[in-house]
């Protein structure tokens, strides 16, 4: 096959056509693959829920609340000691030497927005992240809760 380029015309030679087909094939496969993989990729802002430990208002540790993750932490503060456990996708205070023990009684947290607080020690645990529930629907999670 003879291909001669005419001035101004864009005639493809056979070699070019092969390459062009190849390009379109790669494009198509990549597109399909990326769309298929997309739900599995971490979204900006994180895909899974994360437990955060705060002391005096500052995040001192972030632990993913994923199945199979089991982490124990002892947090010491001027007021005393708190022990925190992450397991089974939850985070909770397991023990504390504070006067009221409210923090331990709060129990396990697993959903974004939930918090448990040891006020006397200024230690807090909370759950953040996770896919944002649809807003504008009945299930939309609040940005803050009055109590």
């Amino acid at each position, binding site marked *: 096959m003879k291909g001669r380029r005419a001035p101004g015309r864009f005639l493809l030679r056979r*070699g070019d056509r092969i390459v062009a087909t190849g390009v379109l094939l790669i*494009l198509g496969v990549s597109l399909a693959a*990326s769309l298929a993989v997309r739900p599995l990729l971490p979204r900006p802002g994180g895909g899974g829920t994360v437990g955060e430990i705060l002391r005096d208002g500052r995040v001192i540790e972030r632990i993913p609340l994923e199945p199979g993750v089991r982490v124990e932490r002892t947090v010491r503060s001027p007021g005393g000691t708190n022990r925190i456990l992450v397991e089974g996708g939850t985070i909770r205070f397991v023990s504390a030497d504070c006067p009221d023990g409210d923090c331990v009684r709060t129990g396990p947290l697993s959903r974004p927005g939930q918090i448990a607080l040891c*006020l006397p020690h200024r230690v807090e645990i909370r759950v953040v992240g996770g896919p944002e529930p649809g807003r504008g629907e009945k299930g939309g999670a*609040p940005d*803050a*809760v009055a109590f």
Partner: protein
Amino acid sequence: MKISRRLLPWLLLLASAIGCVLLLGRGLPSGVPGPGKPRESSFYALGTFCRIRASGPRAEAALEAARERIGEIDRRMSARRADSDLARIGARAGRGSVSVPADLEGLLALALAVAQASGGAFDPTVAPLSDLWGIGTERARVPSEGEIRRALRLVDWRALRLTRGDAAPRAGLARPGMGLDLGGIAKGYAADEALRLLRAGGVNSALIDLGGNLSVLGTRPDGRPWRLGVQDPERPRGEALAALDARDGESLVTSGAYERHLDTEGRRYGHILDPATGHPAEPGLLSVSVLGPRSALADALSTALYVRGLPGGLALLRAFPGYEAAFLLPDGRLVATGGLRARLIPLRPGLAIEAAPGPEGKP
């Protein structure tokens, strides 16, 4: 093989196609691009955990100013601190007045207005009674009837005198042993001040959360309204039974006995005391939530409405146009005034939101 120039457009197409595919796979950037990313300040003040989120060109500086002001309010208007303005007033009780800064005088004037309107259901002079019970502290106990009677003689909002003249404002308590407790209004006042400073600092989007006392500025950075929830007393903190999309400047405050209480001898004693009886209020409500433009007033009203209960609280609310309330009953019904009922979104499955009866007794 030599790549011909005719190939160039195809290569460019491939390159841009791969670029698009990568972008798709990674996901589009979220949020509206704007000046400054959202900033957050978390700290302890006013006896609780405070968190403020703000966005805007100088959000960091505005947050710092708000935090300092809240710290100052905590120092000066705290009943707990011996060096506070409140302590100075109490120290002179029965012997004279003390000069007070204009901001405290204004807050005391607001407290008195709510005390008068509520017939004393909210009373800033409740300190001798709240100190006696000590609920929320390690000293918490059930006092004797005699102790309660004696403390009640020292609880009387009419005995708080404010003077505003040419000289500096002054405040005084008429009887020795009286004291001021602004616990029912201080967080709201601090939220108002924080909002004022954030706005003045050029912040265009903020959410203020002072121990559950909420105020909003503008909308979320992505343009949607800030969604504020009402705590579900049966669920862990942070879970709401209902929510609403707040407008610029609105504040939501909830009062309930489930947060702070004394449990002893099989009974629960809530921390919200009824100044008329000297005992924890038992209004037959789990909580009251107030929505309005001024957080200090919403805070005081939520306390007053909790003590008054239904239906008395509704009459009190009518004295404050622009303020709405939702009363959570033990049977799970949420009774809300008109404006609030229209905006509340139920989140707890099966939650019934009812209209509060109007002045004639009908919704």
